[in-house]
């Protein structure tokens, strides 16, 4: 019971902070000098980006822990972080594309950060789909953990190589010093999303664990001679 309370508390705090931050971002903060109101997407975009990275980092950690410890808890958390991470990166790409159209004039640019996000999305979506095609729970857990480790090890290399690949075609404006009226909603939203993410990971990993328990604990322990 207490676990559920903690998750609910995190979810409530997260939602509360998110709505407060979004209120500040949408109505209180001043519009951007160059981009105008469109720039307000930033208040969700940047927290989504940060959290996506955090969640994938966690996925890597959980995958490693599973391979070392071989306990199902880490697999449940691994599954949860994989799925939430893929969700966030997908959202990130959609938000970014919606923002990119008015600011850059294109939905997508082959800029290192964006490209890395796309590669991450594909890599981890592939791992989710791999999990789907493996019936045996142990195989699923250890093979997908392997794939997660490989994919995570790859992300920095991708970033580095794409940045270099593309060094001549910088499209993105360098992050300008954001004015303090903008910092506050950003920070609030980031913490809100963090709390919500913690709640989501908890809940999703319970689901995974419950499924595994349903799948794995013998429902028929009739002891016979």
């Amino acid at each position, binding site marked *: 019971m207490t676990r559920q309370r903690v998750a609910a508390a995190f979810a409530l705090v997260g939602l509360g902070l998110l709505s407060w931050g979004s209120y500040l971002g949408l109505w209180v903060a001043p519009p951007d000098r160059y981009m105008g109101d469109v720039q307000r997407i930033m208040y969700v975009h940047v927290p989504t980006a940060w959290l996506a990275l955090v969640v994938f980092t966690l996925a890597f950690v959980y995958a490693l822990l599973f391979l070392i410890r071989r306990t199902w808890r880490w697999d449940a958390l691994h599954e949860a972080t994989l799925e939430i991470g893929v969700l966030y990166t997908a959202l990130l790409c959609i938000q970014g594309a919606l923002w990119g159209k008015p600011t850059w004039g294109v939905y997508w640019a082959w800029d290192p950060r964006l490209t890395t996000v796309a590669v991450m999305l594909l890599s981890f979506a592939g791992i989710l789909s791999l999990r789907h095609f493996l*019936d045996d*729970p142990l195989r699923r857990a250890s093979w997908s953990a392997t794939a997660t480790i490989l994919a995570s090890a790859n992300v920095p290399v991708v970033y580095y190589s794409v940045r270099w690949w593309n060094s001549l075609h910088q499209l993105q404006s360098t992050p300008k010093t954001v004015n303090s009226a903008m910092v506050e909603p950003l920070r609030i939203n980031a913490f809100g999303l963090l709390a919500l993410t913690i709640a989501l990971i908890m809940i999703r990993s319970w689901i995974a664990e419950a499924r595994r328990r349903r*799948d794995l604990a*013998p429902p028929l322990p*009739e*002891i*016979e001679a």
Partner: protein
Amino acid sequence: MNLQPIIRADGLCRRQGLRWVLVHLNFELQTGESLLLAGGNGAGKSTLLRLLSTLTPPSQGELELFGTSVKVNRRPQRNRIGLLGHTNQLYPELTPSDHLQLWSRLAGMELPKGLLDRVELADRAHDPARTFSAGMCKRLALARLMLLNPDLILLDEPFGQLDAQGVSLMQEAVEGWRDQGKTVVLATHLIERGKPLCDRALLLAHGRLKWTGPAAELSASMVAGADS
């Protein structure tokens, strides 16, 4: 020969997909004993043999082979196990002599002469395995076990697809292993053929252990009755 159990299953369970295929198996097998696995279609014989080969891990419960749990490092156990399952573990493009060479090199042993003669494949030694008939593939797979001579030998329907000569070859091989003190586990529906080769029998039905005892006491009616 020591009397340490070579196989010890304690609450052994295995789940495949959504189904519990093996449920709470408890049994032991001493080194040098040979075991007959009986049971109807879908009873779980093949699944149990794969568990014993360490190729699939138990979903629950404990399985010890050669005195150590299969959850620990399986490499040393694996070198002592030979499996002849539903598949023959052959490379379609390789010839019998390629296969024998590969297996003996992998095991780091000399290739004994006349092995292909024994399984009556000598005249086809240089044809790729994909051109072989079902029984010829099985014979080649048998040659592998004869070559490697592992300590624990797992046979899934060893008499299937073999002609009369092949069957007696298989029977001789099993008897030879028993004489050498090897442990043989044999799953078959032809229990009349299996009984003389085994000391003990284990009857499975729907993944549960229904009966275990001396092989000679197992009868066809018991197998037929176990399912219902």
